[in-house]
């Protein structure tokens, strides 16, 4: 295991319960966007990459034939399996796998989903190439990730803030770079939605186990660097003693060519 994979597994092993309870991950409107993009008919074989505690897999399972859900971190899959059991979902199976080295035959799936995870991936082009490989010709790739604004300065700022808060964060891209990488892999983009995740109270978001009070102060200070005109980009809302914010989210529907 390399350092990034180790950091990701350590981070998510410590926080599997946090993710199982996170409203951003379980109820975010981006789940609905993905289902709308995919228009499942009930016959699809789906792969959900970096399923975490399984919320995307759970949203699709009742609407498709079968969901295969993968994640790098066994503790996340343990939570996912327990939650699937509680919900009575039986058409999901789980594998520990890396997004950059998928353990599946070529053209195995009709639909690949991946939600709020690629900013933890070490090699995004390799993840996209693996996704393309395991999709059948004409298959769909539907992805959501937190993204940065189209500004070099804010790309640097947002990635610095994310890494301060969570050392398993690798890199957040702006939508233009996602578009370039997805099309460069051979997909045709059919739809895009630009939105924000649910507003999060800063203290709940920053003050997670493992982050010292000094670290939380550093992250808060980074938010204070933003110019007033930049605050709406992150939907910042200030209240006495607390502020709320949301990261921009990019939802994309891309299709593999039928002739490959």
């Amino acid at each position, binding site marked *: *295991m390399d350092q990034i*994979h180790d950091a990701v597994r350590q981070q998510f092993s410590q926080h599997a319960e946090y993710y199982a309870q996170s409203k951003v991950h379980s109820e975010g409107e981006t789940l609905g966007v993905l289902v709308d993009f995919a228009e499942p008919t009930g016959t699809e074989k789906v792969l959900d990459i970096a399923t975490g505690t399984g919320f995307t897999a759970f949203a699709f399972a009742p609407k498709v034939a*079968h969901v*295969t859900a*993968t994640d*790098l971190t*066994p503790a996340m*899959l*343990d939570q996912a*399996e327990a939650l699937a059991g509680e919900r009575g979902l039986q058409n999901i*199976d*789980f*594998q*520990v*796998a*890396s997004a950059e*080295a*998928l*353990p*599946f*035959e*070529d053209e*195995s*799936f009709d639909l690949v989903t991946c939600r709020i995870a690629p900013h933890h991936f070490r090699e995004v082009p390799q993840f996209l190439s693996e996704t393309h490989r395991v999709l059948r010709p004409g298959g769909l790739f539907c992805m959501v990730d937190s993204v940065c604004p189209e500004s070099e300065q804010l790309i640097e700022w947002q990635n610095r803030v994310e890494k301060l808060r969570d050392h398993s964060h690798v890199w957040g891209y702006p939508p233009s770079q996602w578009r370039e990488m997805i099309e460069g892999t051979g997909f045709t983009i059919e739809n895009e939605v630009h939105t924000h995740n649910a507003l999060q109270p800063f203290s709940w978001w920053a003050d997670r186990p493992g982050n010292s009070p000094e670290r939380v102060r550093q992250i808060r200070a980074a938010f204070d660097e933003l110019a007033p005109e930049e605050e709406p980009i992150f939907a910042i809302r200030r209240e006495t003693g607390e502020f709320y914010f949301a990261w921009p989210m990019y939802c994309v529907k891309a299709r593999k060519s039928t002739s490959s």
Partner: protein
Amino acid sequence: MGVPLSTQAQEISNELLEILACPACKGDIEYNQENQKLICIGQCRRRYPIRGGIPVMLIGEAETPTDET
């Protein structure tokens, strides 16, 4: 009460076996129920563990043929 380990262990479905491939060499995978391993029968012959019924298909956690005793 003398139930063989192989029947206690969770089954790996044929459907899953059909689509599983080695993450390293993309070779076909064979299920060894007795040892609860998924074995690459392609080029690299890596052996992937199954823990708690969940296949661990990570190159870094596989046994390679040189690990064999």
